[in-house]
């Protein structure tokens, strides 16, 4: 499989707002190190899961790749072409090929724009389709594909007239109308009800096959990744701790954090649940302004090695075929 996206040492540090006194006394602003040096690739046609708790930097990573926010450091390549420093027109043109599905579909739609217009807008922006009629046909077609049928009925409605699941279908339609190669799904199912969630997961799978898409599937919910993800990246406090195939991560997780994350997923099967060994670390994710030294997970890690984990930052190592982990236990 060819590689579609390559990310090298990507960093994003958000400066905190300073108080007046701090600004006057020229104390440098404190930084939230949301993403702190991540590198990975996404192959053409695969679905890569990006998993982590809140504050892990997964959402920021997604936005960085799409150049919706400016990286502090690092490189992003799309089809071997560097897009890190694309500006204005070139950047706009690129957006045709890279799209995003947001978590909150209500907030992602302009309340004053009819949903048909919202879906058609990308066509207008990129000058796709020779006539209005052609564009409308494309839009109707797309609305049908996301099961908003009959499409003509939906075209003139406003977002507030739709249910949560339907709105998310609109957002998906808008993202896919320009026939993109790569789509970031940022917690796209998190705000939906259980039964609607599975419906939309199925829709995402169907569309992926139909349009030959590559997904970056960002989620806090490890359990949903198994239906859709080929490979999984686990992030903790702005760093990648483990990368591997779905089976690697699920059947033989290496990093203590990944293990904790998996064992923390509530298990509906009473038998499995009773036999399952829980490995729940103490405490919560620390503040990304002052992340722990060395391995960022060491204060909560049950296997933490004295004088090593707290001092030295672990590097990524390949422990089996394409299964990488950043942990001193595997030195």
């Amino acid at each position: 499989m060819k590689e579609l996206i390559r990310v090298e040492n990507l960093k994003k540090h958000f400066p905190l707002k300073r108080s007046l006194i701090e600004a006057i006394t020229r104390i440098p602003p404190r930084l939230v190190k949301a993403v702190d040096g991540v590198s990975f690739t996404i192959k053409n046609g695969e679905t890569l899961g990006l998993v982590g708790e809140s504050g892990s930097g997964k959402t920021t990573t997604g936005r960085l790749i799409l150049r919706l926010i400016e990286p502090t450091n690092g490189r992003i390549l799309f089809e071997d072409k560097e897009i890190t420093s694309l500006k204005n027109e070139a950047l706009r043109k690129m957006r045709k090929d890279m799209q995003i599905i947001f978590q909150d579909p209500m907030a992602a739609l302009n309340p004053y724009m009819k949903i048909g217009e919202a879906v058609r807008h990308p066509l207008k922006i990129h000058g796709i389709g020779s006539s209005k009629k052609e564009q409308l046909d494309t839009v109707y077609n797309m609305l049908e594909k996301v099961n908003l049928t009959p499409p003509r009925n939906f075209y003139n409605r406003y977002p507030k007239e739709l249910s949560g699941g339907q709105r998310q279908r609109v957002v998906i339609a808008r993202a896919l109308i320009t026939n993109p190669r790569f789509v970031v799904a940022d917690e796209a199912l998190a705000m939906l009800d259980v039964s609607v969630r599975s419906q939309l997961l199925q829709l995402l799978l169907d569309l992926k096959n139909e349009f030959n898409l590559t997904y970056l599937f960002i989620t806090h919910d490890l359990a949903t990744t198994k239906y859709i993800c080929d490979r999984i990246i686990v992030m903790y406090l702005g760093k990648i701790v483990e990368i591997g195939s779905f089976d690697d991560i699920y059947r033989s997780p290496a990093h203590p954090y990944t293990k904790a994350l998996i064992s923390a997923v509530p298990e509906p099967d009473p038998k499995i649940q009773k036999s399952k060994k829980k490995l729940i670390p103490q405490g919560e994710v620390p503040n990304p302004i002052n992340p722990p030294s060395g391995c960022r997970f060491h204060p909560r890690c049950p296997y933490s090695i004295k004088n090593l984990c707290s001092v030295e930052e672990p590097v990524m190592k390949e422990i089996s075929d394409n299964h990488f982990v950043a942990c001193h236990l595997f030195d």
Partner: protein
Amino acid sequence: MRSEKVIEIKNLRISYLTRRGPVSAVDNVSFSIMKEETLGLVGESGCGKTSIGNSILKILPKNSSIEGKILFEEKNLVELGEKEMQKIRGLKISMIFQDPMTSLNPIMKLRDHFVETIKTHKPEISEDKAEEMAEEAFKAVGIEPSRLKDYPFQLSGGMRQRAMIALALVLNPKFVIADEPTTSLDVIVQAQILELLKNLKEKYKMSIMLITHDLGVVAEMADRIGVMYAGNLVEEGLSEKIYYEPKHPYTEALLKSIPNTKPEDKKLIYIPGNLPDLINPPTGCRFSPRCPKAMKICFEEEPPIFEVDGSKVKCWLYKGAEIVENERVNQS
């Protein structure tokens, strides 16, 4: 076997008056919770599970009306006056809310939350003693007692939920309603809180009603499970029964549509259609429009509750089984 009922709910109906008309949020629901038992109430948003929790403490919004019986300590809470309810809330029945950020008074120190609650119910306790009790409660949930002098916003999300739990348990109530207690938390913190709740339940010997949309959370905690759909309690039974032998087609579909942690089980099954509009609920069984096994009678007549193999099921598939409850009989 624990057989003493802590609370018994009989033919509970809750409706809200909205501009579009009355919404029947809970329709003829009956169940009980035994001593030292955890009952999980599961369902999707709008199924009425939170309304049931709030109706027990009578903290429903003003546009609501309750019918039926909620029996607690030989009293029908539905008929109880506000003054008497105040004596029960927080002392005998406590509640843990979903979002600990918004459920604590933002401009009140944590310590004052405790002192106020204790002094309200037990005015004879001195302020110092109340503070001591608060410290004990904090220790029990694993927070440093010195943090009592903090304001809620100074705590992390998981700590706040611990504080909320400590506050709910400080007077040692015999029944606790936990309404989506872990929904706003991250997975690992969720696991910590569930573990904590389990331990505290053993320690304080209380009964819990756990309200959640997450079947996994219920399975971790509950002895028995009640499944709700569109205001109806469609199935109720022991946790293992519900999981291994679901009787109601909705329970079955719900179980299949939620992801489990078994890596090999990758088949995605979902329930087609949408949740019904409760202003005009479907006639007959409320699940009938989405039910793969629906028969003619399902669209016409509301099913009674049948007792099948130890579980209670509200479904016509079990016609012929013993009827536990026929609502037309009980309606009067």
